[in-house]
């Protein structure tokens, strides 16, 4: 309990904590100081002391003779009610129904049809046998019927017009956005922004989609450069030669079949180099498949599971 020096009187909680010795030494000293100067709180504390004394003086009531025997006899009649020792799973089993009146919650759940089948059967059996609960149920039903009769209240006939008038006034008040000097650029940026992910999950999907080609590129680079005759320099030379010959071929308008095209031939020989290390190709394919699977899973999660922001409609403040 926070109890700091302030102007005012002691609250009931503070007085009770004080009387029960639940305050710290500093708080208690403060309360005592306050009581010295505040007659109203002194009177209040005296009243609480009286209540505490009355409660303390309630004393113990003695049950009638034979009470203990009665309890033991009931225990013999209902052995399942005796707590058993042993492993917890040995104690699992159908729980015994305690034959007490239905609670307020049970009445409401019953009327709402929210009780399970077995609980409803038990409640109905109890209602059939217990007249106070039947009477209580009648009152609950009456409350239900009264609540259902509440109905709607009508606003004044000018209500709708009032809304539209306000709406028009607000629209007129709102300043029109200043025209941009480069509208096409603004539109393009706006469209690009719409393509960007708007949540961490969206970024995860984008990352997942980017992962697969990156993994494939890495695997291919590894396969190519792990060959003993291949180095960065030779690959660049090779690519330059192939590109220039392809361009020369294209410029010369050389015909020929598809496979005689220098660009296709170059790519073919490149893959031949990769194929010389089949296990690396296998690893690359596996990683590609894995990347694709992760991407598909992320996409699936993105579009099927609800996000917090999607569960509720946007509400203007």
């Amino acid at each position, binding site marked *: 309990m926070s109890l700091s020096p302030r102007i005012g009187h002691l609250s009931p909680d503070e007085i009770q904590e004080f009387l029960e010795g639940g305050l710290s030494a500093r708080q208690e000293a403060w309360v005592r100081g306050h009581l010295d100067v505040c007659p109203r709180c002194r009177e209040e504390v005296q009243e609480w002391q009286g209540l505490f004394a009355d409660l303390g003086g309630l004393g113990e009531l003695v049950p009638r003779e034979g009470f203990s025997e009665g309890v033991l006899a009931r225990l013999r009649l209902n052995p399942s009610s005796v707590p058993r020792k042993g492993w917890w799973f040995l104690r699992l089993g159908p729980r015994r129904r305690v034959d007490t009146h239905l609670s*307020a919650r049970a009445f*409401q759940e019953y009327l709402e049809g929210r009780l399970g089948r077995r609980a409803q059967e038990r409640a109905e059996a109890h209602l059939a046998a217990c007249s106070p609960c039947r009477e209580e149920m009648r009152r609950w039903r009456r409350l239900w019927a009264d*609540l259902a009769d509440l109905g709607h209240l009508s606003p004044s006939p000018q*209500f709708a017009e009032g809304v*539209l008038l306000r*709406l028009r006034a607000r629209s007129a008040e709102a300043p029109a956005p200043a025209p941009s000097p480069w509208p096409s650029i603004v539109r393009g940026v706006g469209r690009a922004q719409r393509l960007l992910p708007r949540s961490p999950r969206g970024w995860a999907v984008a990352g997942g989609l980017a992962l697969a080609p990156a993994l494939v590129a890495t695997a291919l680079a590894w396969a190519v450069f792990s060959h003993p005759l291949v180095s960065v320099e030779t690959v660049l030379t090779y690519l330059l030669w192939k590109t220039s010959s392809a361009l020369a071929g294209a410029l010369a308008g050389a015909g020929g079949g598809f496979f005689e095209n220098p660009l296709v031939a170059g790519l073919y020989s490149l893959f031949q180099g990769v194929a010389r290390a089949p296990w690396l190709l296998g690893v690359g394919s596996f990683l590609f498949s894995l990347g694709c699977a992760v991407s598909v899973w992320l996409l699936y999660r993105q579009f099927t599971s609800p996000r917090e922001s*999607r569960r509720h*409609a*946007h509400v*203007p403040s």
Partner: protein
Amino acid sequence: MELRHLPDHEVASLAARGREPAFRELLRRYQGPVFSLVYRMVRDRATAEDLAQEAFVRAFQAIGTFDPAFKFSSWIFKIAHNHTIDHLRKRKLDTVSLEGSPYSRDDEDEARTRMEVASAGETPEQVLEARELGSRLEEAIGRLRPEYRAVVLLRHVEGYAYDEIARILDLPLGTVKTFLHRARAQLKEMLEGVLES
């Protein structure tokens, strides 16, 4: 096709395009329910009209952001409830009676703002009984905490399911259940004499 026969989300999308008949149609559909909720929350007709109108204006201004995947009714109730709760917090107006507006300045004003409760009875005795019961019930609802009032009204007047109420009020489902149980238990206690008869 007539607007009257279109579902809410289609009317809302027409409203998002600035069609005034669509706004009117949404108002026709929801002015009663929204006003009733707000009126029973604040217990003052003029304040309730003002708050409900403001809720509609806010909703219509933001209609472009309305997601048709959700119910329009839940959306408008959510806006109206939030706005009303803000108002109650500012005014610290938690409980009032049916005797008249707490803002009334004189007897005439108080009489003018006194709660009107319609009755559904047939004979004069039944009318009187229904009026009395209605008044007692309305008064009892007015004495509930605003959060309890809202859940009871959304459940029993609007007929929303628990999860929908949880969405409208931004509360966990368990809290909605607890609020409902406590609210009804308090109502029952307050109406003990009436329910006995």
